[in-house]
């Protein structure tokens, strides 16, 4: 009788652990997924949601910095 209760307890612990791991993985995965890179029309279509989507669009603010860092060192060494 005791061992059967113990088994149930272990199974509950395993299920809880799986749920916690799944939640942690989902949490870490979701911020990197931009709407355009994954599912189209994901997220809210309220004005607040749309406003957020527009704010999230990065035209390429670090373009100049990126070109300099990728090329300048080599060019200057010539």
């Amino acid at each position, binding site marked *: 009788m005791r061992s059967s209760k113990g088994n149930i307890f272990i199974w509950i612990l395993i299920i809880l652990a799986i749920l916690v791991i799944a939640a942690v993985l989902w949490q870490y995965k979701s911020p990197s997924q*931009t*709407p*355009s*890179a994954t599912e*189209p*029309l994901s*997220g809210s*279509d*309220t*004005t*607040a*949601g*749309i*406003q957020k*989507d*527009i704010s*999230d*669009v*990065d*035209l*390429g603010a670090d*373009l*100049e910095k*990126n*070109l300099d860092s*990728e*090329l300048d060192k*080599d*060019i*200057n*060494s*010539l």
Partner: protein
Amino acid sequence: MKKRIIIPSMFLAAALVLSVITSSANAQGIYDKARQAVKSVKVETQNAGEEIKAKREELKKEVEAKREEAKKRVEAARSEAQQKAKNRLDEVKAKINKIKDDRKRQTSERLQEQLNRLNERWTAHFSNVLSQLENVLAKIEIRIQKAETGSGNVSDAKTAVEKARAEIKAARDAVTAQAAKVYTVSFVSENELKVAFKSVKEQLHTDLTGLRDGAVKNARKAVQDTFQALRQVPNVDVEN
């Protein structure tokens, strides 16, 4: 005496029974009409909901198709340009191979490849930005349809959507044109390498910033303007 009381009482009772029957029939009629009205409103709401759902699916497919199409177009333009510029690229590689200084030769080889890799990376980024804008525009269209179901005036927002579509298309064409560019260094002697690569880098910089601050920015502004037009619609966030 009894007759005098009984006969009017019978008439009165009959009238009473008749009025009860009539009023209950009327009440039934009113109840039926109300039920019918509620039912038709429910059906209308359900139909509107289904229309919005269908529109959402349609837009989702459209955004996905546009994204794939744009990706293929950019890849095709790039590969075609590389084929066309093959001779020029081979000549430059051969010239770089002749550089006597090992370090300078290796650096030049790396830079020549890096210039085109950066163009590829940034045109892919701009293409991605345009996909994001198309996604936002699709959401705006869904919100417009919802507002329209709620009898809001959405004509300005609809006009703005068309303008934004045109701006995104123009930006897509500009990105494809940029992706088709092949950057090659031009030099006569080893001493010119630094100046020559600086000049190509400047050209790449001018082209990419021009694209970002021109066509791509215009597309984003057009989407922002559409969003502003949408916000003018009263009760735009109310779900029907």
